[in-house]
């Protein structure tokens, strides 16, 4: 139990009548990168959003089962969602910085959670931007609008914003699918660095990306979790035939 950051047990999710996630049981290792792969529409992002209860915002969405974070079930009634979402951060598919300055974007989270001292905020902003490998590019234009950055920079800003609240986990929902190859490469490099300090769970459409950045890979198909294991194993000797078919490109 101690070696697992998340332990998902029998997770089922319904959108109305539609049974979107079927009986998922899965461990997630701490301080490692876990990649979720599979054809589109098979529940990877939905599953990801269960880990920080962002699915709560969707009407008509019912969740059954347990998701243990460090041993406590986050779906227990009365869970402090604010603290949960602080511990488990999220980066989205399209970069979505707020229409504010770069500084204000990164300072948003800490300000929410009570940090008002300007000096402290400055430090947090700097270290978060450093942690997202963006500091050197923006250090002298912190007060310019975040929307003036390039796509790749905006996404790294979103990562900086997420880590500014000092989470333990980073959930990334196809973070590079809207970016060009150069920006993608930079972010993949960043993910490898982030692994040292955070537990990363990344949904990706791109199998090669999963192979490049992750330690563990999980294969989803139509709402079911078919298999998971060390990335090397999944890609060289998958146990399930369907996994093999997907990896070799027979469908996708």
């Amino acid at each position, binding site marked *: 139990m101690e070696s697992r950051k998340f332990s998902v047990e029998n997770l089922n999710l319904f959108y109305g009548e539609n049974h979107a996630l079927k009986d998922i049981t899965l461990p997630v290792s701490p301080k490692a990168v876990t990649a979720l792969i599979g054809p589109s529409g098979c529940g990877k992002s939905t599953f990801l959003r269960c880990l*920080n209860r*962002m699915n709560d*915002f969707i*009407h008509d969405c019912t969740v059954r089962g347990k998701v243990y974070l460090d041993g406590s079930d986050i779906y227990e009634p009365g869970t402090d*969602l*604010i*603290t*949960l*979402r*602080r511990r488990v*951060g*999220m980066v*989205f598919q*399209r970069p*979505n910085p*707020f*229409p*504010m300055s770069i500084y204000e974007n990164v300072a*948003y*989270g800490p300000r*929410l*959670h009570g940090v008002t001292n300007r000096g402290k905020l400055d430090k947090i902003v700097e270290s978060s931007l450093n942690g997202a490998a963006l500091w050197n590019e923006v250090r002298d234009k912190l007060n310019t*609008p975040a*929307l003036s950055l390039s796509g790749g920079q905006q996404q790294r800003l*979103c990562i900086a*914003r*997420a880590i500014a*609240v000092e989470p333990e986990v980073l959930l990334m929902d196809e973070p590079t699918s809207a970016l060009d190859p150069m920006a993608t490469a930079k972010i993949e490099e960043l993910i490898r660095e982030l692994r040292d300090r955070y537990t990363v769970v990344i949904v990706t459409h791109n199998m090669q990306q999963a192979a490049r950045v992750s330690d563990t890979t999980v294969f989803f198909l139509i709402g079911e979790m078919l298999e998971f294991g060390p990335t090397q194993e999944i890609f060289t000797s998958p146990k399930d035939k369907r996994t093999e078919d997907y990896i070799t490109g027979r469908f996708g």
Partner: protein
Amino acid sequence: MQSALKGDRAPRITISVVASMGVAIMIFILFFLVKESMPFLLRTSISDLFGLYWYPTYDPAEFGMLPLVVGSLAVTLLSSILSVPVSIFLAVFLSEICPGKLREILKPVIEILGFFPSVVLGFLGMVIIAPWMTEHIDILTGLNLFNASMLMGIMIVPIVTSLAEDSLSSVARDMRDASYAMGATRLETITRVVIPAALPGLMTATLLGVMRAVGETMVVLMAAGGAAIIPVSVFDPVRPLTSAIAAEMGETPVGSDHYHALFFAGLLLLLLTLSLNMLALWIEQRGRKWR
């Protein structure tokens, strides 16, 4: 291709001519208002123009615009203070909190409220609010600034709410998600992300509501009292530009000094509302560039 273009020339020209009627009307309005105000402007000195007394039917008549202008500003200001915050709250409610099905009912209801005839609101001011005021407050008349401002507030709410709600809803879903994912509450997301992002639209909505208040006639004609004085208390009667024109034009001989003075009042009104309109337009366009 050639024949298609040729065949299109006649319709195109006819339609552009019809369309230019809109331009013509606007230009004519400006032209005629200026034309009829000129006699007044030419014979009145600046100090008389901004005089404190509007006694158009006295002999000698006094045409000080100040009480009328202050009256308009006072009603506009008070009604905006009363109704703009409420409208923004309603807009936030509709956009962020109201469940979808209820929203489909409430939004149209508010829109329909915007078509409420102003003469009916003025009537309410006379038959309910005025008597209530004289009964419960120690004042001479219930037809006053406060009465009219309350009713004007009701008039403004639908406009500001609809436009503000449109502005809030068009803030991308993404923004809210990013905020929630960091542990913000809904209130924090609304106040720190959504409202700042929608600010140009909210300002435009307010300006257009104010513009409507400035130009409104029936409510002030019927409920603001008729005295062209500069109000000292909110329970004083006022006579804004609009009600002066509406009340006095019927009795005024065409071509008289009073006639031209009223046209000047109309011109002032037009310029005021046009500036507000243009300001709103400018903010809208600048706001669009940001995003």
